[in-house]
């Protein structure tokens, strides 16, 4: 190997730091409330005295999916694969690096700050940790009603009734209004979070692992509550979770993420019937079955997830894949539609000419 000159290294580094923003613009279809196209979110790694950008953590590395109105999309994947970042980037709580997010056919990132603030009530988020997501110094009515007042969702004289209604809908008692977050249990706090999101009368809610911090009995209550509310208010959910059984229960479509990539995406039934991607297969084999006699053929994934700052070349999963081929190590796979609405990103299905 010949030694690279300094200039060459610099040029390569520069090239590496460029975030590619190539995508085929989407044509909006009105049945989708949210269309995500090649969305990327890179966090810069700064180093040295001058805090120069020396690299990127590729938290979300070009994901594309669509959510129909009134349905729930489950987004699964192991810790650190970029699910939460994806959710927050879609809501523009962190700025995107590249790609397209269409909400009701409009690019979320085209709004000015003022317009964005006006559109915020339509897309809400429920956080994972019900303890840190409530300001400890405000009573519940303020936490729920603050933004209602700000956006003038209801007339001033109906405000109290409206808050009471929302609280009741979310399974809280109206006399909880004047209490402070520290006086509630985890499940109640999560209900408060849900009430805060729903009070703004949203169309679309990102549920960022809303039940992971709760114990199992409360999880079921919250999931059922979310489903009831979906029926009642015609909500669309992006349900982020690492718990496949919860996702199976609530979702209409499922996306599987691995290291910033959406490796498989499709209707719930299709995916559970026929998982295609080796990672999805491994994940689904880990779902516990409530039958002690049942024999499960577990697929074990060895090693740990590579660093998103320096992901493997080719297919990102090839370092841990059981059906890894030579090709996987060099060529980046592309998304393929195996059956209608069922997409996979894997070289195994390169020859498949279906749909």
């Amino acid at each position, binding site marked *: 190997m010949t030694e690279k000159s300094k200039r060459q290294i610099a040029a390569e580094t520069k090239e590496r730091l460029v975030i590619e923003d190539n995508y085929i613009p989407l044509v909006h279809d009105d049945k989708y409330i949210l269309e995500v196209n090649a969305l990327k979110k890179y966090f810069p790694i700064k180093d040295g005295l001058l805090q120069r950008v020396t690299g990127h953590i590729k938290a979300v590395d070009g994901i594309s999916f669509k959510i129909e109105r009134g349905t729930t999309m489950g987004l699964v994947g192991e810790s650190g694969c970029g699910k939460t970042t994806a959710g927050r980037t879609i*809501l523009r709580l962190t700025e995107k690096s590249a790609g397209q997010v269409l909400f009701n056919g409009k690019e979320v990132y085209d709004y000015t700050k003022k317009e964005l603030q006006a559109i*915020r009530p339509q897309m809400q988020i429920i956080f994972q940790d019900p303890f840190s997501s409530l*300001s400890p110094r405000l009573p519940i009515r303020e936490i729920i009603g603050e933004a209602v007042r700000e956006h003038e969702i209801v007339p001033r004289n109906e405000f109290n009734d409206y808050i009471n209604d929302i609280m009741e809908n979310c399974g809280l008692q109206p006399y909880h209004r004047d209490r402070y977050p520290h006086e509630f249990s985890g499940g109640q706090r999560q209900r408060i979070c849900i009430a805060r999101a729903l009070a703004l009368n949203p169309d679309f809610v990102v549920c960022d692992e809303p039940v992971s911090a709760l114990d199992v009995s409360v999880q079921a209550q919250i999931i059922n509550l979310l489903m009831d509310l979906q029926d009642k208010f015609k909500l669309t959910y992006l349900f982020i979770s690492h718990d496949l059984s919860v996702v199976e229960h609530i979702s209409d479509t499922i996306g599987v993420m691995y290291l910033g990539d959406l490796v498989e995406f499709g209707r719930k039934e299709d995916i559970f019937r026929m998982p295609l991607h080796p990672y999805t297969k491994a994940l689904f084999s880990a779902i516990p079955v409530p039958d002690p006699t049942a024999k499960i053929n577990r697929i074990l994934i060895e090693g740990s997830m590579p660093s998103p700052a320096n992901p493997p070349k080719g297919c990102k999963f090839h370092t841990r894949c059981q059906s890894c081929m030579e090709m996987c190590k060099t060529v980046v796979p592309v998304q393929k539609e195996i059956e209608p609405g069922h997409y996979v990103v894997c070289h195994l299905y390169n020859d498949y000419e279906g749909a």
Partner: protein
Amino acid sequence: MNRKNKNNIHMEDRQGKPVDSMALDDEKRIKILSPGLLVFKRFIRNKLAITGAIFILAMFIFSYFGGWLMPYREDEVFTKYVDMSKVYAAVSENTEYKFITTDNTEFPMIARSQFVLASNNDRNLFESQGVSYSIEKLADELFVVFNTREVAVVSIILGNTNVALSDPSMGPSFIERLEEAVDAGEETFTYNDKKYLLVQGKKNYLAYELEPLALATLNRYDFISADISVSYDFAFAMELAMHELMETGEKSRLITVGGVEYEMEVEEEKASIYLRNNGDRTLYANISRYLVESIYQDVFISIDFKDQVKAMMSEGVEGVQDFVYVNIDGEEEEYTIERNNTEWVIRWIEDTLVIKAYDPPSKEHIMGTDGNGMDILTRLMYGGRISLMIGFIVVVIETMIGIILGGIAGYFGKWVDNLIMRIVDTFNSIPSLPIIIIIGAMMDAQRVDPKIRMIYLMFILAFLGWPGIARMVRGQILSLREQEFMIATEATGLSVSKRIFKHLVPNVIPQLIVISTLSLGGVILTESVLSFLGLGVKFPFASWGNIINAVSNVHVMTNYLFVWIPAGFCILITVLGFNFIGDGLRDAFDPKMKR
């Protein structure tokens, strides 16, 4: 979960149907406490914190209401009368000539000393500052000084007398008189009521016209009233008469000066002059060698008093001798007289106004007075006001700077944060005490008004104290900013101002209160140190620090404990109180502390 079922229960509640009394109804069971109330509850359960609060409250009442109730002012100096033996007058034998000048003339001081030299050397002519004077000796220690003007030069050449006149207005009769005098060998002669002096030179005579200027005598004239002053004519007549009487041994004589008839009585070296009016005589003046003068400029010592003193002196004074003088109003006044070499000192007991310095505690001054005669209790109260006020204002200013800069750094982050934090680092590396000492010395040199100086002091202390608070606020906001409830405020589309003031600030305030309370004690201490060193609050304003400053005098430190111990105690109590409260608040704000 069955939602329908749950809703039914609510319906019943709302319709006001009786609820089962055994039901654990949250509404009845749990008392709702806001976080603020919880903190308050935890705070008042903390005995130490309550002690601190009582200390501070007491100090406040003491300083503000006390100062308001005290009848004395902050810088009121108290005085008292003390009987003190003080010098009233001094008597000495006169050895210096007194010059009694004629009307409208002046005998300069330099010429006076030239006169003394000339009279000692028996010269009858002297010059001073280009003016010629001549002296005529009337008797021992009695001279007349004349202004002298050269009028003619008389030269005798081969028996012929030749007169050269300086003043052409002089007539031929004057030349005749002059030649006559030269021939007779007279030293002085009179012409037209004017005195002339002839001085023999080597080949000629010089003639001078003499104009009386002053009478030089060792005698002193004591008149019955301070309004009368001695005139040349009067003195001339009296001196001559006295001299003649002493020579002849007569006792008395009548003298008329300026149409007024006087009678003089002589006794040894003294003379009394009486004013005669239709046969009655009243004492008018005394003449003697003794000078009796009060050390007070405006006091006129009566002639009786002088007589009495002179009589005692002639009897001889040994040691300290008491005497009583009955004044004009018939009141007795006590004096002492003491001989001191050639002088006699007369003392009297006088009620003297003195400052009540270091007066021990009494009914009037419960804690005594300090070195300036000011009431210590009053000064403690006013000093407390200033110390507490400076503490509060400094903390308010530094908290404001701290919140603004720390908040900006924390909220905006990036290079703003970097810049502000480097400024904070710079401020933290400044040695604050030397800086304050230097600024204090500079203000001393500039003679800054004490009131303005106090304001400067506050700003300087605040300016040096804000970095700690800024750093704390910044750290707090940095951590709060990443909390999910802050992201939720963004997601719900709240305005930036609401996010800052409703969510960020209330969550920083607990730590802010704690750090401010703790730094209050620190500021009060720093202020005391500076005032103690004389660089902080300056007289006439009191501060606990500058009250303690009295200990820099070892005598005060060891003998007058009541001056500085109370101020030290006040500082101790206040700082302790603030620290107790700060600790109590910190515990109360910390939810992990279960008290």
